[in-house]
């Protein structure tokens, strides 16, 4: 873990991570997000990937698991800002169309319902 910031904006939870997302930390991230989602009424999760310097397939697995969890509960899940290495990894496995990606701050603000 390098630096993780969780921020609440209305009913949205915004997760921002600075560093590499690999096997080393995906377990931690899953546990933290589970803890946070259990706590109260989070309607939307946004993960900011703009400062992720490297991501492997366990990072992809983490994103897919959050997506599944949120969708099956009728909630929203978005990615925000993809760093070039993240974009490359997601592109390789053809998931750039699968996730909902917020392209700019206006889209972010709209998604957070403010």
């Amino acid at each position, binding site marked *: 873990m390098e630096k993780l910031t969780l921020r609440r904006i209305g009913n949205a939870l915004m997760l921002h991570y600075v560093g*590499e997302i*690999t*096997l*080393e930390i995906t377990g931690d991230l899953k546990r933290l997000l589970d803890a946070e989602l259990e706590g109260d009424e989070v309607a939307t999760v946004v993960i900011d990937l703009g400062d992720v310097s*490297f991501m492997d*397939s366990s990072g992809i697995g983490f994103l897919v*698991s959050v997506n599944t969890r949120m969708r099956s509960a009728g909630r929203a899940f978005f990615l925000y800002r993809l760093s070039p290495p993240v974009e490359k990894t997601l592109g390789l*496995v*053809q*998931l750039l169309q699968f996730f909902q990606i917020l392209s700019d701050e206006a889209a972010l603000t709209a998604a957070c319902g403010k």
Partner: protein
Amino acid sequence: MEHAAVKKVFQAISHPGDSRKLAKEVVEYLAREHLADPDALHDLDIILTEACANVCRHAYGGAPGRLEVRLGVNPGRWVELEIVDWGKGFAGDARFENPGPDSEGGRGLYIMRMLSNHCRVDRRDGENVVFIHKDIGATQWKS
């Protein structure tokens, strides 16, 4: 690795952190000695990280164990990698296909195949080997 002018071996124990560190060590060596192109280095970084993570997660039933990377370089032409463990070995079912978008796992071998020219898994003399051959364009090397 018949024609490799340069051969080098890197070793670690397959903890999650150490597996990633081993991948980085190999990439840093390549960046220092051979390769200039950041995209090629990033590709090799992902390949190595995926293969080393697999040893960490699958080879020894989740426990740590020996992990080795054998590097072959034919400067100006290609890089070859063998990621080796002495664990339980691949079942017959090693898949190199991209799973469905909802699948949480199963993308490692697919990624390795996509980023290389040849990718193969072997078992020989108790060693489980992921073999990678990656051609690298002449302009991507250090001059």
